[in-house]
């Protein structure tokens, strides 16, 4: 008898652990192998637990850098990015990244410290209502009220973040919960019970039949491929479907890489800075098959002119996206891979698209993306992107910031492979590109990662150069430096009669010296000859590098659909 009691006591002792210890344990169970974070008072117990039971931790130099790095990591790896920040300012510094991940459907689990339960609601030191703040910009959020709930909440958070339409989940942990000792009952076999969350993966058979009928009978079908194809890892199925039925395809900004950039059936990107061919195809098509895109307004332009002749088939894992902006004839709630598999399993007559493809190919030649290079004027940003493409064979992981350089990269870096394109689409977050490249490089240590950034956006998060220095990450940072807030300047030129209000930046740091300060090789180039040489050199090493690539200041991104206009009303179709 006595022996038994003792045995029981001792196992109890073994299992009694602090909330923080259990958290780290739970993260390990989830297979987390990297955390992006920044410590502070409210997460000290968690960092202490991490010290004793390490998981690789990347200390960003600003919480925003941490979360964008986690986004980059999630985008290229398909895994859930994990972030830790302290309460109050640590948590609020994450807000931009959380909103970004929400709009771009990136799986993140974000842990924030919180002041102790006993003082929540008293405006305690470093208290911020991060649950209230992030409620509209998270897929879900939790505040841990009882330490016993912690393992369950962590499990649910990862499940919610990574399934269905992925998104950020925030878990707010009061400090006393982290320190509280408790007997963690192992819940290995306990399933997840979320009666209010059951994403539909498999398509409805009848809807598939309807889609087949619509597609079979079409003369001018067109596929619009979004990021959903990449999330579902359905690029092989997509290619097979497109080729089998000879249906042309265009991509959204975030969908790039879903199909080979040089594929003969690919029309280029659609939308505000999409190709003329893709946008007019949307206007002319009789069936538009949207797979995993959300008909964002930067894609559709004026809805009144969007796909006026088309029956819309919309495949999306999120039912709320179907019919939200564009009336839909055939709604299919499903994972893109499952839906495509089902469409491939069914044998049906391919539509006769010979004439349609012929006319699209004429457009592709006639209205190809173009720019006018002029040796005297200096480097055009488009040339720089093409140079990067050439040096990396279209195989690099490319991240961008937000602005003109982002659009030029989307237009001119034709991706051979999926999951190599990292950009902030929905929120359009300046400061995203460079830290995202760090996360991408950590996810894919053996691949070439290039961050194409603007001179302005880079300065929003450049403190993360420390991470290149610290981990010797061979990221190549290319600043397309037009000494202006280029995209803002372009709009001011086009819509505000060249009144360049606060968009020309006369004072900049010496980026080469800046790089050197972080012990990174820095270069500055002003001509294409220099660029050819320097880029080749910089890209040949396995070390970080920064290139200040001076480009023509007044170059504009074309073609363009002006805001409020339809996709049929593009300007600058001939590149000017």
């Amino acid at each position, binding site marked *: 008898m006595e022996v038994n009691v003792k045995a029981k006591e001792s196992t109890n002792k073994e299992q009694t652990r602090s909330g923080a210890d259990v958290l780290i344990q739970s993260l390990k169970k989830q297979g987390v192998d990297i955390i992006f974070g920044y410590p502070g008072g409210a997460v000290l117990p968690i960092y202490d637990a991490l010290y004793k039971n390490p998981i690789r931790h990347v200390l960003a130099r600003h919480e925003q850098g941490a979360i964008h790095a986690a986004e980059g990591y999630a985008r290229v790896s398909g895994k859930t990015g994990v972030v830790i920040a302290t309460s109050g300012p640590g948590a609020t510094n994450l807000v931009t990244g959380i909103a970004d991940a929400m709009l771009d459907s990136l799986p993140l689990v974000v842990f924030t410290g919180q002041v102790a339960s006993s003082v929540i609601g008293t405006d305690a030191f470093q208290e911020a209502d991060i649950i209230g703040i992030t*409620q509209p910009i998270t897929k879900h959020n939790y505040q841990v009220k009882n330490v016993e709930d912690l393992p369950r909440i962590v499990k649910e958070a990862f499940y919610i973040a990574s399934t269905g339409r992925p998104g950020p989940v925030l878990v707010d942990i009061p400090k006393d919960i982290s320190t509280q000792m408790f007997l963690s009952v192992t819940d290995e076999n306990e399933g997840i019970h*979320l009666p*209010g*969350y059951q994403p539909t993966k498999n398509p409805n058979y009848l809807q598939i039949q309807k889609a087949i009928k619509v597609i079979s009978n079409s003369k001018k079908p067109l596929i619009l491929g979004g990021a959903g194809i990449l999330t579902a890892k359905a690029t092989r199925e997509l290619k097979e479907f497109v080729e089998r039925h000879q249906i042309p395809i265009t991509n959204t900004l975030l969908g790039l890489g879903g199909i080979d950039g040089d594929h003969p059936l690919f029309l280029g990107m659609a939308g505000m800075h999409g190709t003329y061919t893709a946008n007019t195809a949307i206007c002319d098509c009789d069936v538009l098959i949207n797979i995993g895109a959300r008909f964002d307004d930067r894609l559709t332009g004026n809805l009144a002119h969007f796909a006026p002749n088309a029956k819309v088939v919309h495949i999306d894992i999120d039912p*709320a996206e179907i019919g939200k902006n564009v009336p839909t004839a055939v709604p299919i709630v499903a994972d893109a891979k499952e839906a495509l598999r089902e469409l491939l399993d069914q044998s049906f007559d391919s539509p006769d698209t010979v004439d349609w493809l012929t006319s699209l190919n004429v457009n592709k030649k006639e209205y190809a993306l173009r720019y006018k290079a002029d040796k005297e004027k200096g480097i055009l940003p488009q040339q720089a992107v093409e140079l990067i493409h050439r040096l990396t064979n279209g195989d690099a992981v490319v991240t961008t910031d937000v602005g003109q350089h982002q659009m030029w990269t989307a237009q001119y870096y034709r991706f051979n492979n999926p999951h190599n394109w990292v950009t902030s689409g929905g929120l359009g977050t300046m400061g995203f590109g460079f830290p995202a490249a760090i996360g991408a490089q950590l996810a894919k240590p053996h691949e070439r990662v290039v961050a194409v950034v603007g001179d302005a956006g880079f300065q929003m998060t450049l403190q993360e150069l420390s991470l290149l220095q610290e981990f010797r990450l061979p990221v190549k940072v290319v600043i397309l430096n037009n000494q202006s807030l280029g995209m803002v300047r372009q709009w001011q030129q086009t819509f505000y009669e060249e009144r360049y209000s606060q968009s020309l930046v006369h004072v900049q740091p010496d980026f080469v010296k800046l790089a050197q300060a972080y012990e990174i090789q820095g270069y500055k180039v002003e001509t294409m000859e220099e660029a050819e040489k320097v880029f080749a050199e910089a890209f040949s090493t396995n070390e970080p590098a920064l290139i200040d690539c001076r480009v023509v200041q007044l170059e504009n991104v074309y073609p363009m659909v002006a805001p409020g206009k339809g996709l049929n009303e593009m300007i600058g179709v001939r590149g000017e």
Partner: protein
Amino acid sequence: MKRIITTTVINQSGVLNRVTGLLMKRQFNIESISVGHTEQPGMSKMTFVVNVEDERKIEQLLKQLQKQIDVIKVNDITDKAMVMRELALVKVATIPAVRSEIYSIVEPFRATVIDMSKSATTFQVTGDPEKIEAFIDLMKPYGIKELTRTGVSAFVRENQKVPTNHVSIL
């Protein structure tokens, strides 16, 4: 148009905030909202009346609500046969000269007197919102000193088969 939406939600802290926050974010106007426990432990029911422009908007609202992790069930019961009740407390100026007149008006509404003083009477009236509106309109001339309404609570009737030639009460 007005729609009556019922949702079953997990009775988690913040769930009310989540739902109203969502309505605000998506630019829906809440006319009334009522929340309370249900027969199932841990579950609450919310009934709200919203003003929407068109079918597409209402569909979007239902889908967005459904997306919330803590929301178990969402129903637009506007076009269903349903029972719907609201409660109002109405404090009316009842000087002796008009008191009996007011009481005779009140009677058909089966309103009950729950507080009384020399110059004012508080009535409790329950029913569908239209009935409450009518009651308030009739009391107005006498002077309403205070008024509070609970918002609509509703669910669908057991028997849906009989096609009610439905005159929307809202």
